Structure formats: C-alpha cells, structure tokens
C-alpha cells in the first residue's frame, strides 16, 4: 500500500501510524517495529529538511511484505533535489560529550538497524529502499 503526503515534519505521525498498522498486520516484532519507526523518522525528516529547498513538496511511502524472506520492504520516494543521504562518512561514536554533534547519527542508526538500505535517483525521484526482517 502507498501513502503520499506533504513532506513536513508534523506528518511523521500519520506516516508512522500508516506503516505501523501494516507492520502489525504482518506480525512484525515490537523491536523491529521501533527500529523501522526510527528509520522512517530519520529518512522522512531528511526529505522534509532538504528535498525541496524550503518549498513544499511530497513524499510517497510504500510498504510491501517479502514473505520468502520474512521481511518488509519500505520505499520512500521524493520528487525534489537529487540527494543521496548515504553518501556521507559515518560519525565517530567514540567521541566524548563535548566533542559530540548529532549530524549524521540518524542515517548511521538506519544503517546499523536495517538489513538493507539503498539509494537511487530514478525517473526524477530520490528513491530510498529499506529491507528489515520482521
């Protein structure tokens, strides 16, 4: 199923509800669900902040069960400026409190928790695909 919504941060709530209702129907574990919710937040907030350069725009999220892999595949698409969120170095998570910044931590968390994470620019869209075992 698909959901297309305006890319603004308040919409993370209906987006999370939309994805969670499908995860629950698939019998997703609570642990995987909270990791997916975090991944959605990190990826969608990136789109809200960067994809449309301050203008309004939309994002389309689709959720698909992969029964053979006992996994879910979630695709997040936007129609904005080409931007690969994975093209950055991982942050140094060994730094102390005073050297710390939050930049890059979100995508780092997504990389650590999802089984697969891919980016491509296709047909004028940024397309991010994540796969996670249920």
């Amino acid at each position, binding site marked *: 199923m698909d959901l297309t919504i305006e890319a603004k*941060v*308040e*919409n*993370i*709530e209906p987006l*999370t509800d939309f994805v969670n209702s499908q995860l629950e129907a698939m019998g997703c574990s*609570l*642990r995987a669900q*909270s*990791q997916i*919710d*975090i991944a959605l*937040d*990190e990826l*969608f*907030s990136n789109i*809200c902040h960067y994809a449309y350069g301050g203008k309004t725009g939309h994002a389309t999220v689709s959720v698909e069960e992969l029964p053979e892999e006992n996994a879910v595949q979630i695709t997040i698409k936007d129609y904005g400026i080409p931007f690969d969120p994975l093209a950055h170095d991982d942050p140094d*998570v*060994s*730094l*102390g*409190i*005073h050297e*710390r910044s*939050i930049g890059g*931590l*979100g995508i*780092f*968390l997504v990389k*650590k*928790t999802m089984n697969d994470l891919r980016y491509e620019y296709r047909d004028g869209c940024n397309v991010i695909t994540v796969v996670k075992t249920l």
Partner: protein
Amino acid sequence: MEVLLNKDGGTLVASISGRINTATAPQFEKELIPALDGVEELILDMTDLLYISSAGLRVILTAQKVMARQGNMVLRNLKPEVYEVFEMTGFVDFLTIE
C-alpha cells in the same frame, strides 16, 4: 509524546511517554531544558517511551551538558529498543543509565 515534570527540592523527575521523533523533539526540548534551572539531580524516567530518534538524542545531549555543570542526570527504566539506540550511538559512554 508527553513529558510529566515532578520537582521536589533540587530533584526533578521527568517522565517521558510516547514517541520522541523529529516532530515531537522540539516540544521535548522546550519543556525539559528550561525546567533544569536550579536542578541538581535529574531523573529521566523512560518507562513509557516507545522510541527515540536522533532528533531526541540532540535534546538528551543538551540536557546532559547542562546537568554536567550543575549536578547529575540519570536515565531509568529504558525499554531494550530505547537502550539500543544509546548503545549504538555511543551515548552509553557518557550517560548514566540505571
């Protein structure tokens, strides 16, 4: 997301419930950080916190920096999913988690 603040002398207990995400983190910051004035012991009770994303980690980092100057900060009753976020990001190295 909801934050319940309970202040007793220099001790503040903040009970956080729901989701801390990119939409709710600004509210979390606005309610928590100004309340730290004069607090020596901050307890963040996360019993009912479902998850925290990096937007929330930024607020936790700010609170830890404030409390490092004026007292202690302790995180309590974390669900395993919440603990894992602090672990993966290395925050466990400078936070006190009970």
